[in-house]
Structure formats: structure tokens, C-alpha cells
């Protein structure tokens, strides 16, 4: 049976498959393509990969660093101990119909 890891991200539940890496001797998370197949929180915020290239709406989190990826954007809220997080930018939010 495939090994997976579950994350509860701001109300959304994600199941991330794991694969065993022989060189490092540990399980690695295999992230889905969040750009091709977007996943949203109940609030309509997209879930992203931390190292996704920064988009046109991004703003620097740290004035001394560049804006290269989601991880360096002030709208991004990273989940602990993984490389996924939530984009809190209003311009990227979708309207959720109840």
C-alpha cells in the first residue's frame, strides 16, 4: 500500500504521497502540481509549493531579500515541516459559493 501523509491546511485536507529515497534512506514527500491542478482552502485561498516561482501579485516579505518564490512573498503562509503553504493574496483567491 502506498505510504501517504495527511496535512490539514486552513480547513483543507491534503494527502501527500511518500516515496522511499534509497540514497538518503528516508521517505520523501511527492508534491502534486498545484499549478496544473489547483487546490483551495474553504476560504478560497490556493495551496502552493513554497518554491513555486513568484507571481506578478507577489510582494517581498523581507526588504533585504528578493522576491523569487512563494516562500519569499509576504502573502504566503507556510505549513510547518513541509514545503507547502497557503497563498493569502486576495487577488489569487477564488470566490467560494456556499
Amino acid at each position, binding site marked *: 500500500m502506498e505510504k501517504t501523509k495527511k496535512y490539514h491546511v486552513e480547513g483543507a485536507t491534503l494527502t501527500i504521497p511518500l516515496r522511499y529515497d534509497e540514497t538518503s534512506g528516508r521517505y520523501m514527500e511527492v*508534491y502534486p502540481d498545484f499549478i496544473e491542478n489547483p487546490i483551495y482552502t474553504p476560504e478560497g485561498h490556493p495551496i502552493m509549493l513554497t518554491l513555486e*516561482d513568484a507571481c506578478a501579485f507577489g510582494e517581498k516579505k523581507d526588504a533585504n531579500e528578493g522576491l523569487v518564490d512563494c516562500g519569499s512573498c509576504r502573502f504566503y503562509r507556510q505549513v510547518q515541516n513541509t514545503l507547502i503553504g497557503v497563498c493569502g493574496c486576495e487577488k489569487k483567491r477564488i470566490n467560494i459559493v456556499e
Partner: protein
Amino acid sequence: MEYITVRDAAQKWNISERLVQKYCATGRIAGAKKFGTSWVIPAGAVKPKDPRKAQRAPAMRRERRQSVSYPGLMPLMNTAFEPGRCLEFIHDMADDPQKQIALAEYYYFSGQPEKAVRETELFLTGADRDIQLSACLIYAYANLSVGKIQRARYALTAVQEMLASVSEKQPEMRAALSFVSSAAAVLLHLPLPERLPPMQEFLPMLPMGIRMFALYVNAHYTYLQKEYQKSLGIVETTLGMQTEEYPIPSIYLHLVAVMDYMSLKQRDKAKQHLLAAWELAKPDDLIEGFGEHHGLLGGMLEAVIKPEYPEDFKRIIAITYRFSAGWRRIHNPDTGHDVADNLTTTEFAACMLAARGWTNQEIGDHMNISVNTVKWHITNAMQKLGIGSRQDLKNYMLL
């Protein structure tokens, strides 16, 4: 005796009257006499020399050193051979220790460290200091590649001890030792030896090929200080100065230029230098340098060499793994760093570029892989290293 006035002297020497008076007052014109407020000067007096020039000339003469012949010091590195005729040159050498050192150099630079170790073992001690120094340097690096770290340490320590014991009255020996010590330290990213004299003191004494390699070491050191433009200046000047092509130092100089240009995000220029290095290396299979520098070449080997020369690329990567394993074992006891542990070479190359602020799209374009593949490699690397952000990756890879 006939005398002339200050005005006459000024016209004759094409200087101001005020300066003539100054010369008279400071006693620089023999026979000048003062009458009241003015001076008279012997008609045959010679214009005094400019004191600034007079002082500078002997100082320059004192500092100039001539290059010294070091027949046993890395003879292959110090030879301008035609690419493709490296082995021919070695076979034509007289059967003596120099030939064996040249052969050991060939083995080392063509990625055959076991053979290089065998060739140099006999010369680690001996009367000929140049041969011994060359043997120590090759032996240290070759053992690093075959995983015999204690032996590598032994050879490096022997060089340090020689440097510490040599007298300042032996400038030729100090020059050779300084070259070997700095090469050993800088290329392994170790601190420079405390007793290392300034480079300008020993560089002029080294023969052309060795001097070029010493300048490569200097450019590499400057690169590590993140002074990429300065490093490029050293490389371009050194390459431009050579009157004949010295393949081994030239390959290494071009590789540093690739590192510098990739750090400055100038891919086209980096590619030009990589191809120039490859053109010199390929005919004699001198591929060791490519493997040693892989991590700093910013994916350029994957982008340029891998598609056209897949078999050579595989061998280069094998050198990289072997060399970096030894490199880490040299470093671990002192720094605790295990930067590249468990990373594949592709993961390492992608991470180096990501750490330098390249986007996934830019990395993908450069390495001829898709953006998703870039993300795959970087997420794998970040998980292996236990890193959660690109900023942490930068700290880990570059600091």
C-alpha cells in the same frame, strides 16, 4: 669660470626660474653661488634629475625577481603542449623522475587517481625538493579522490612543514612551496597557511605554466570571496598574457571564468569559457577539473556537455562524486559541514542556482529540463537537507 643667471638656466633646462632657485637653495647644482637675493650658476652645470624618478628607479630594480627554472615542479602543468599530444610529449621525455611526475600529472588530470597515487608514492621523500613537492601535491589530491584521507592529510601536512621550515634566504624554494601550499589550501577551501608570503613576492619567480596555475588558484580564492569581477579580471588577463597555450592551467582558468560568469548570471559568456576549456581538455581526456568544479559550474555541464558527450558526462559525474566525498571527509572534522551529502549532482546544480536567486523557469531553460523537473529536484534536495525555504537553502549552499 663662466656663470649664467637663473633666467638663462631656466630657459636652457626648460623649467621655471622658481625651480632653478629651489635647486640652488637645496644645493642640487654644484658651484651655484648666491649674490644678494639671486643666484649665479656655472655655465657647464647639469640639470638636476627629478628626485622622484631618481628614487623610484632603484626601488624597482630591487624588487624585480627573475623567473627560476623548476624542472621537477609539475612539469606537465608547466608545458605548452599541443592539445591531443600530451602523452606523446611525456613519452619523449628522458627516463627520469620528471617523466614519472609528468605521467602522474597526466593520470591525475585525466581522472585516474589510483595510477597517480602509484606513480607518486616513491617520490614523497627524496633529495629533489621540486619532485617531492609535486609528488605531495598530486598524491594528496589523488588520495582524496580514492577515499584515502589519512594519506591525503599526510601529504598536505608534509608540504606545510616544508613551508614552515624554509628560510627567507631561500627565495626560490619559498616560491615553489608557497605555490604548492596555496594550491593545496585554496582548492580544498581550507584556510591559507599562516606563513604564506604575499603572492607578488613569489609569483614572478615561477615559470609561465606554474605561474598561470598560481593565478588560477588566486582567481579561485577571489571567487570564493564573492569578488566575481575581480576574479574574472585575473582570469582574462592571465589567459591574454600567455604567448603559448598551456593546456592544464588554461583549462582551470576557463573553469573559474565559468563559475564567475554563472554567478553574474551571464550564461553565454560562461558557455564560451566552458567550451574553450572542453576544447583543450577533450583531445587528451583531461577531464578531472570538470568533475572537481562541477558544483560551482552552475549546471553548465548538464546544459552543454551532457547532451553532446553523454559518456564523458557520466565519467565527469563519477569524478565529482569521488572527489566531493573526499572533500567532505577533509572538511567534516573541522567544519561539520556536509553540504552535498546524499544530493545527486543534478540536485546540487539546481540548488546552487536556486540559492543564487534563479527562478525555476530560468534553471529549467538553462539545464534543458522542465520546470516541474526542476521543482522535483529542488524539493527532493530541500527535504534531504531538512530545509524549508529558499533563504535557508542560500545559507546552506553559499555561506
